[in-house]
């Protein structure tokens, strides 16, 4: 038992706290480079996200007077640990699909919400009207996107005969037997919903309403400086790689690491990453009421349609 605990702790440190941040920095570079190319610029060098992180670690930490000091400083760590845990679960499931526990899909869905919660906590704790405004917008956005997201994830569950184990979902999508969920009509609809939700989860344009640099100066992060800001930035970079991997597991049959399959697996993750970046670069920011209406209206309708189609076997 003790060795098993140690093994999973090692997974958490090795995969969650070291490999995922590195992969996240790479994903962040891809995001920024693609953005730059879309705008006919050259873009940042490969190590740019790394230097940003190191620089922020070396800066002074300012805690605003009158803020809730403990929550203000702990909130970034809360978000970071949640994403690290999610990526540990996802990667260990990808490498060993037969392991895992019943209901880890639900755990992942819950944990994916915690980074947003951390942003809200940090925003409200920093005693700044702009940060509070950003945090309250983030809260409304969560209310908006969680329902269609869970409905869209249900599509994969229904296709794999009601399995809520990520490993079983991957095994069911073996190309020789069942094929990926994303190849079905309901799967395509679910992917559309999920990509929009990922956009909102990452607070990218058109749903960057909580941070809105040009409007409320990066919202909940406005009072953050130095290492806490670095952890927030790192959390966001890790989400940038974790969410595409999660979608690949649910809809495109997971990732495989034998021979040429490695290339194909990386391409699948890159597909979602670049899709998110392109949507972010070709859209204006919407208002918060428009965003909530968008998620509760068209997106929920599409997600319900996908669930019904999945139940009828399409």
């Amino acid at each position, binding site marked *: 038992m003790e060795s098993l605990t140690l093994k999973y702790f090692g997974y958490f440190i090795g995969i969650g706290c070291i490999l995922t941040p590195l992969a996240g920095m790479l994903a962040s570079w891809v995001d*920024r480079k693609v953005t*730059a190319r879309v*705008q*006919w*610029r*050259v*873009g*940042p*060098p490969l*190590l*740019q996200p790394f*230097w*940003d992180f*190191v*620089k922020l*670690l*070396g*800066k*002074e*930490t*300012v805690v605003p007077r009158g803020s809730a000091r403990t929550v203000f400083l702990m909130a970034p760590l809360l978000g970071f640990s949640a994403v690290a845990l999610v990526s540990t679960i996802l990667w260990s499931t990808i490498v060993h699909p037969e392991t895992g526990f019943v209901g880890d899909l639900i755990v992942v869905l819950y944990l994916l919400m915690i980074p947003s919660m951390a942003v809200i906590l940090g925003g409200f704790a920093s005693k700044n009207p702009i940060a509070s405004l950003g945090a309250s917008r983030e809260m409304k956005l969560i209310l908006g996107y969680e329902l269609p997201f869970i409905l869209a994830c249900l599509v994969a569950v229904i296709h794999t005969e009601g399995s809520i184990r990520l490993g079983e979902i991957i095994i069911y999508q073996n190309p020789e037997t069942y094929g990926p969920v994303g190849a079905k009509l309901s799967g395509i609809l679910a992917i559309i919903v999920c990509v929009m939700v990922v956009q909102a989860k990452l607070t990218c344009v058109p749903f960057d309403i909580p941070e809105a*640099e*040009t409007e409320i*100066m*990066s919202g909940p*992060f*406005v*009072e*953050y*400086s*130095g290492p806490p*800001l670095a952890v927030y930035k790192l959390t966001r970079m890790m989400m940038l790689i974790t969410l595409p991997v999660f979608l690949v597991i649910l809809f495109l049959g997971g990732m495989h690491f034998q021979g040429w399959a490695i290339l194909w697996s990386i391409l699948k993750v890159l597909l979602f990453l670049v899709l998110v970046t392109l949507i972010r670069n070709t859209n204006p920011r919407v208002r918060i009421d428009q965003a909530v209406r968008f998620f509760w209206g068209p997106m929920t309708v599409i997600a319900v349609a996908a669930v019904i189609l999945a139940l009828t076997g399409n």
Partner: protein
Amino acid sequence: MNLKMKALTKSPWVYHLSTGSCNNCDIEILDCLTPRFDLERFGIQLVGSPRHADALLVTGNMTLKSMPRALEVYNQMPKPGVVIAIGTCSLGHGIFDGSYICPKTVDEVLPVDIYIPGCPPKPEAIIAGVAKLLNKLAGK
């Protein structure tokens, strides 16, 4: 050179502080971020909060009203940070010299690290100035 300063020279995030400028220098600063000049190549980003900033881009001739505010923004910036004075007004007073509204120059209020002259300075001049400052910080 330690890692802290090296990282600072690799990703200086700038905060744009106008202390009573005529908006000309401010437009030239925004020009630097356009695709033609693309300051993101050097990791330079414009940030909206002084808490995120590593460098203050000060424009304008430091009016009486903006003096305490400029000082407050400087104190809000986490250290280490640098101050870059842009434009003739922020170097001396330019055409406003002797005016009752600007008793002090920018460098009498803030510790300026580098001056970029011009009315307004060209984007090339701003980039050259920032590059010189980064080289100075890197100890070259």
